[in-house]
């Protein structure tokens, strides 16, 4: 297998790598024979577009819908409404095998996402076997080359996951994901189980591989600090909705939604001259089964106004991106 970068499609065909329109997913919770239960809207009316070769960071707290969104993009879960287009093609019309050729995951925990009874070589070559490409010798050669690409010594090919460190395991997971040359990598908190020094190694590696293989990343994390380093654009999720999306620079330097501001304020840089930031956030955590009226962030929002609890804000789109907040009414200049 050659290691040349994939030939890029001609720039004229500017179909986004991923296009998500009005995507929703809800779950029935507590349903029984007697009652229908309640509806939990995990993802609601999400619109996102990711260009080829771009890194979209998705940031939000636990329960904000990040992982549900990623599972839908991997075809592991069906949307309740709306659509996902990969390369312009609706995900529901793409066969499972074809989808896995285009979209591959890297999960959070390299301790549970690798089969402990298979060797590293078997784990990395499995995608090739599944897709039936190459002879055994060719596959072994491809595995060794990929191991070098992700910074793993080829002598580890006969080792088992338990013999590897966390960082090495995450490299294995990345190598496995890249074996069939997908276009899109969905990284769900790929470094949050790792130590700081190892996290830096993996982030550098992902950055290199993106250029080498012309990859598109959807990078899910709760740490905005990482996104400044790796992402081009950032979408901020809160209770299933994208409340702000803009370039990473804009979100990091001029966040507009008060929640994005709070997330940015929570990034603790190692500066001993600074104390803890004051986020002015309310402590009332909304119950996803009984979401607050109006804007779902208003119970915690330091800038809440009377209309925030009355009506949900509309989406404002402008040259900066998208924001859903009453502070930025549609048609306003900023």
């Amino acid at each position, binding site marked *: 297998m050659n290691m040349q970068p994939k030939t890029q499609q001609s720039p004229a065909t500017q179909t986004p790598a991923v296009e998500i329109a009005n995507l929703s997913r809800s779950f029935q919770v507590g349903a029984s024979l007697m009652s229908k239960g309640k509806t939990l809207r995990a993802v609601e009316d999400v619109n996102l577009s990711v260009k080829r070769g771009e890194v979209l960071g998705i940031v939000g*707290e*636990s329960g904000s819908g990040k992982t549900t969104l990623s599972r839908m993009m991997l075809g592991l879960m069906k949307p309740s409404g709306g659509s996902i287009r990969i390369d312009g093609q609706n995900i529901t019309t793409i066969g499972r095998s074809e989808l896995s050729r285009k979209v591959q995951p890297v999960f959070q925990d390299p301790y549970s996402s690798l089969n402990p009874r298979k060797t590293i070589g078997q784990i990395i070559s499995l995608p090739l076997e599944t897709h039936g490409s190459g002879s055994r010798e060719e596959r072994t050669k491809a595995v060794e080359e990929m191991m070098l690409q992700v910074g793993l010594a080829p002598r580890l090919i006969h080792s088992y996951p338990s013999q590897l*460190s*966390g*960082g*090495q395991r995450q490299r294995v997971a990345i190598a496995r994901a890249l074996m069939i040359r997908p276009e899109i990598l969905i990284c769900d908190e790929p470094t949050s189980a790792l*130590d*700081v*020094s*190892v*996290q*830096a*190694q993996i*982030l*550098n590696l992902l*950055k290199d591989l993106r250029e080498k293989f012309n990859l598109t990343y959807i990078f899910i994390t*709760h*740490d*905005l*600090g*990482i996104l*400044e*380093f790796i992402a081009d654009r950032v979408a901020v999720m809160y209770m299933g909705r994208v409340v702000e999306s803009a370039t*990473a620079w804009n979100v*990091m*330097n001029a966040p507009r939604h008060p929640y994005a501001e*709070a*997330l940015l*304020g*929570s*990034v*603790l*840089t*190692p*500066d*001993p*001259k*600074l*104390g*803890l*930031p*004051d*986020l002015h*956030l309310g*402590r009332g*955590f909304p119950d996803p089964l009984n979401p607050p009226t109006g804007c779902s962030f208003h119970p915690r929002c330091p800038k809440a106004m009377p209309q925030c609890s009355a009506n949900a804000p509309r989406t404002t789109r402008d040259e900066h991106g998208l924001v859903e907040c009453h502070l930025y009414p549609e048609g306003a200049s900023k």
Partner: protein
Amino acid sequence: MAAPDNIDAPPILTVEGMSVDLKVPSGMLHAVNKIDFSVRPGQTFCIVGESGCGKTMTSLALMRLLPRSAKLSATRLNFDGHDLLSLSDHAMAELRGDRLGMIFQDPMTSLNPVYTIGNQMEEVYLRHRKSGRREARERAEFMLQRVGIMSPALRLKQFPHQLSGGLRQRVMIAMTLMCEPRLVIADEPTTALDVTVQVQILQLLTKLQEEFGMAIILITHNLGIVARMADRLAVMYAGKIVETGSALDVFTQPHHPYTQGLLRCMPTHDHGAPATRLGSIPGIVPSLVGDIRGCGFANRCDYVRDACRTGDIALRELPDGAAYRCVIPPDEALARPAELATP
């Protein structure tokens, strides 16, 4: 950035030459290797390091909660006038939860799922203060209010699973403070929480520290938290303290190559162009089984020399009680450019 450094007050905790050895199939694992530090009343002392550096073993040793296979030894281990090494199990149990509190990482697993919050909080008080039920309930309600929980009477009747992660950690903190301990050991208290909640919990700890005057040993891998919380800190690597000092000294003038490397690994946010590459530390932590000769960091260090691989590495003392464990003298250590060694 808590209370000013209380340099005159006698330490509440003195640790000298403490080691924790674990028997593993392949031999003796030296999880903690002859560490020294002391904590003064009202101070926040942070222990920072990566997984496997011995920080959790250190906290368990101080609480005397080590696994059976572990052997604890020290030349001195003194907490508030008690010799923790010779204290009977019974006396130690009296100390824990009373003068010595502990906050664990995951409040879901450290709270008992089958008892109500009230039951668990009151038990601490009933046991150590020999008070009546009613007094204990009042105290529990008071503490829940102190940690910012609304309608405490209702919460006391609830079970841990009915609370969110942030609330559970608040309950855990309230429970730890029931008897106003002199020292609280918090092992990664916010790692399981969302970032905005993390900041709120850390703020709460700082506020309560001012109110109750307890000392805190905060154990974490998060350098951002250390920088914002610590009065003094110790950086651990491979079971040893490799650098110690005030937060200001260690963060602005790190001397040990490991501390310098760790700081380069942090994605920075300084309203400018983001870094194109992060610094990283090549290699992995050495095995701690068997005899370790020389510096544990030698195989990952950019500045390694022959002297690093033989014998014990002496501690180099710096002004203001700072120190680092490295063969390289201070002027040379500080001369390293910050961006060097970035591959």
